[in-house]
């Protein structure tokens, strides 16, 4: 890690310039934080960006196991022929739309983790996504894994520590103590109000008599909105990039603008939204298009990080709530399935493949892949290996072996 860079966003001058000064000690360097594990993680300035592909991405047509005849037997119509694939080795090739991922992989900046899933899989989008969000399948965990992680590594509750770009807040970022900054369009992330009403509008979040929990929640959110909105809008307004993020950039340019502006955010959460990857019917063209958008946006984002000199500080994790059933359905699409790949991307990522691919000839009784890697091993990998918090066990109530993905 670049030491100079590590200190950069924490200097008093930078804080002033970013408009953070008003928020007091919370934005100061976190040398007094409790617990060695938290202190180590807090001292780092590494950023994690999570991107979810909502709807259940068809992993088998994303990174295609073209070396396995079983793949073509199960998918006589929608299986992608070897000559069309962007091959990465003797066995796997990316979907033809994914030049962006192919480049990242060949440059050694992408780790693919095979066979990610969990026991007793749910085939419901909402349930399975909630399991991935909480990192606690088949339990009633109330908070998200990103939220719990923030509470653990940042007990001082740095404002704007978590940013979630979406229309609604993801369960993944729901925290006991942190109030995530959630917005969709930076341009409208601000309060309208005439000059003479401004002093009062700035204090709407101060009701000393807040009677019920909903009211207190609203006041907390109002405070977070006041603190974050100016920073976000300024960051977005100032941000200009020559980098091409492709046709549907998802929300990654917004993330880039905040990183460029020196926001103290360590955890970004974004989504390819609205169940886009739920490809039950005539999926081939649509699916390829969705993958192109994803690959172009992620590749563009990493290029942009290089451009602004933050590529060493940022890692991206990509996942979906489940893969799809191995045999194609009769509508030239695929139904809800199980195990899938996860992707870790960044200059500090050790590129290559990790974990064991699920065996296409040993499907479960529902014609689904059997998972080989608990997805929380990948979470633990980024929590420990990337963010430097050694106690991921505390977040998941059990120990998950990490992969040697981060140098």
């Amino acid at each position, binding site marked *: 890690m670049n030491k100079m860079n590590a200190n950069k966003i924490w200097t008093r001058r930078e804080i002033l310039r970013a408009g953070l000064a008003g928020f007091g000690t919370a934005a100061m360097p976190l040398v007094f934080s409790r617990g060695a594990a938290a202190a180590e993680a807090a001292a780092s300035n590494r950023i994690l960006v999570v991107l979810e592909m909502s709807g259940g991405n068809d992993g088998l047509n994303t990174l295609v196991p073209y070396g396995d005849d079983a793949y073509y037997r199960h998918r006589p119509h929608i299986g992608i022929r070897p000559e069309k694939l962007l091959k990465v080795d003797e066995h796997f090739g990316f979907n033809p739309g994914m030049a962006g991922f192919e480049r990242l992989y060949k440059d050694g900046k992408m780790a693919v983790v095979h066979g990610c899933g969990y026991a007793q899989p*749910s*085939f*419901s*989008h*909402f*349930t399975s996504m909630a399991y991935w969000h909480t990192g606690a399948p088949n339990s009633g965990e109330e908070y998200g894994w990103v939220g719990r992680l923030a509470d653990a590594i940042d007990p001082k509750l740095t404002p704007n520590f978590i940013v*979630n770009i979406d*229309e*609604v*807040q993801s369960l993944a970022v729901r925290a006991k103590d942190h*109030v*995530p*900054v*959630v*917005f*969709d*369009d930076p341009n*409208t*992330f*601000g*309060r*309208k*109000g*005439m000059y*003479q*009403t401004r002093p*009062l*509008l700035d*204090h*709407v*979040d*101060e*009701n*000393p*008599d807040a*009677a*019920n*929990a*909903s*009211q207190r*929640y*609203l*006041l907390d*959110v*109002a405070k*977070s*909105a006041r603190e*974050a*909105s100016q920073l976000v809008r300024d960051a977005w307004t100032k941000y200009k990039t020559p980098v091409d993020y492709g046709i549907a950039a998802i929300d990654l340019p917004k993330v880039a603008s905040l990183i460029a502006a020196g926001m103290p955010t360590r955890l970004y959460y974004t989504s390819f*939204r*609205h*169940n886009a990857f739920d490809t*039950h*019917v*005539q999926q081939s063209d649509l699916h390829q298009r969705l993958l192109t958008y994803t690959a172009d946006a992620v590749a563009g984002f990493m290029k942009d990080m290089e451009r602004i000199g933050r590529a060493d500080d940022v890692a991206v994790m990509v996942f979906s709530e489940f893969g799809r059933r191995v045999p194609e*359905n*009769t*509508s030239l699409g695929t*139904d809800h399935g199980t195990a899938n790949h996860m992707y870790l991307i960044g200059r500090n990522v050790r590129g290559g493949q990790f974990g064991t691919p699920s065996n296409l000839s040993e499907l479960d009784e*529902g014609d689904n892949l059997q998972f080989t890697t608990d997805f929380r091993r990948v979470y633990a990998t980024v929590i420990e290996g990337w963010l430097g918090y050694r106690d991921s066990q505390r977040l998941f109530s059990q120990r998950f072996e990490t992969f040697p993905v981060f140098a």
Partner: protein
Amino acid sequence: MFLGIRSKAFALGALLAASAAAWAADGAGDLGPIASRDWSYAKAAHLLERAGFGGTPEEVARYAALAPEAAVRRLVRSKDVPNPLPAFDESDIHDPGLEPFPVSRPAATDRAKETGESMGVKVKPAGNRRLQPVADKFFYWLRASRLETHRMSYWWANRMLLTERPLEEKMALFWHGHFANSEEKIRDYRKLLMQIRLFQEKGTGNFRDLMIGVAQDPAMLAFLDAGVNVKGAPNENFAREIMELFTMGVGNYTEKDIREAARAFTGWNFKDLTFVIDPERHDDSVKNVLGQSGNFDGVEVIDVILAQPVTADYLAAKIYRYFVRQEITPELRKQLGAVLRDSNYELAPLLETIFLSKDFYSAAATGTRIKPPVELVVGTYRKMGLKEVPGVPDFNDVTEALGQKLFYPPTVAGWANGKSWITPGLLLTRGNFVYDIVFPDINFLPPDRYPGGDYQIAIVNDKLAQGYDVTTATKPDAKEVTSMSMQVDRDEDFNTRLASYRGWQTALQKVKPIPRATAKLDLSEMVLAAGSRNTREAVDYLVARFLSVEVDGGTRQRIAEFLSRELGTSELAGTETFLEEPLRLTLHLILSLPEYQLG
């Protein structure tokens, strides 16, 4: 009937009292009915807020003057309450040739290539862009149906605003989130109109009727791909959502139950606006669903599902969580499920039990619910005393920005309620909505008349008028094009961008415009008629009229001082001629308090 229900609810309450579980001193957890002597203006306001879209002081007073049973009955059993509201005034944009509408633009043009015709439009015999009229027609319907859907949401919002039967619309809105179908996929406003009318008509009736109605509703059949669920190749989408989202909830059935149930629904389909069963495609053999086996069809599978005890529990709990609060104890879930089950899925007894219960009026249930966006917007207009939904700001844009656009639920699971309505971004947007009512944007352009921005076709319009050939006129903006394609108008079957442009052009001619009046708001008249004599009284009046929770004295004092500064006096007498603008600033301040989001 009504008394019977009441005593049943009371008996349930007594049952709970006898058990070890005790409810809070103020009645939280107690389904027993509140006493008439406890009925008050505040409780009537709470009832209207939850069972409807909030009320003006006059409406609240009318309900407060009734006994609680009568007030609740008026809402729940409202079919005999006169409610003269206009039917949706359709634009006459559909023609029979459009059916069956192709699933995609490629499907539309492929069909035309094969048969010489598509959507009632013939392929030109020769010349350039022979398929252009076909592509035009395809985009025309997409645009027209979308615009008409926007008009339809105005129609529905106006019903919510003006209805004498607020719970009828509120339940329709609940079911719209429960059976969440989106125009984004259905692409036919007529089907969605039928569906909403089904919700309005049967939404407080019997759930079995409603569930069967929905399962045979063309919008739902289209939304869940019923057409591809056929004998020998069942598609599980429909059966899965019925069990997971509509009736039982996850964890109460197996994957095998879904596969078997899907077979019972095979052959169910729609033809234009009619439900049809194709016997050739219906799997008529024995199915095993939830421990029952038989030669089930779809209705019988629904009956098997309704016979599961968990179904009534699931539905009752969802209704409770929508109307009362997000948290429900296992005891309440069981008791409310029993009410629904014992009435054979009649919804009225359940709703009456909830709205009469001590639990519903307890502190934990009052002023604690985060208003969903549509309720916030309609409720704001209702409390302002408006007689129509303003055209400025645009209702669809506002509700979309707030996260709840009618006819466009985000996923098949509908909208998540409670805290998920509020993020820092959305909280600010809620305040900005109020600003846009009290200070309408003079730069406002009606989105249903100016579609150019979103679809990048404004420039096509201009270039065609300047005599450019189609290839040049439709060239993507600000992108280099190779010299080859710049030279001449290309030979092609059709041009998609031109079709998009023409689709808009025809749709704009056919779809009626949305009226664009701003809010007819007269705050001066409102506070003076209420008898407010000074700024403090005016602020107290507005706070009480609009908010459901207390605002601390200090805040109210600061806002009153602000109003006094703006007026140059704290007395209202003599300020009539310049009172409106300062009051609008004041209302914006009051409705920007985070507390305004609670109902």
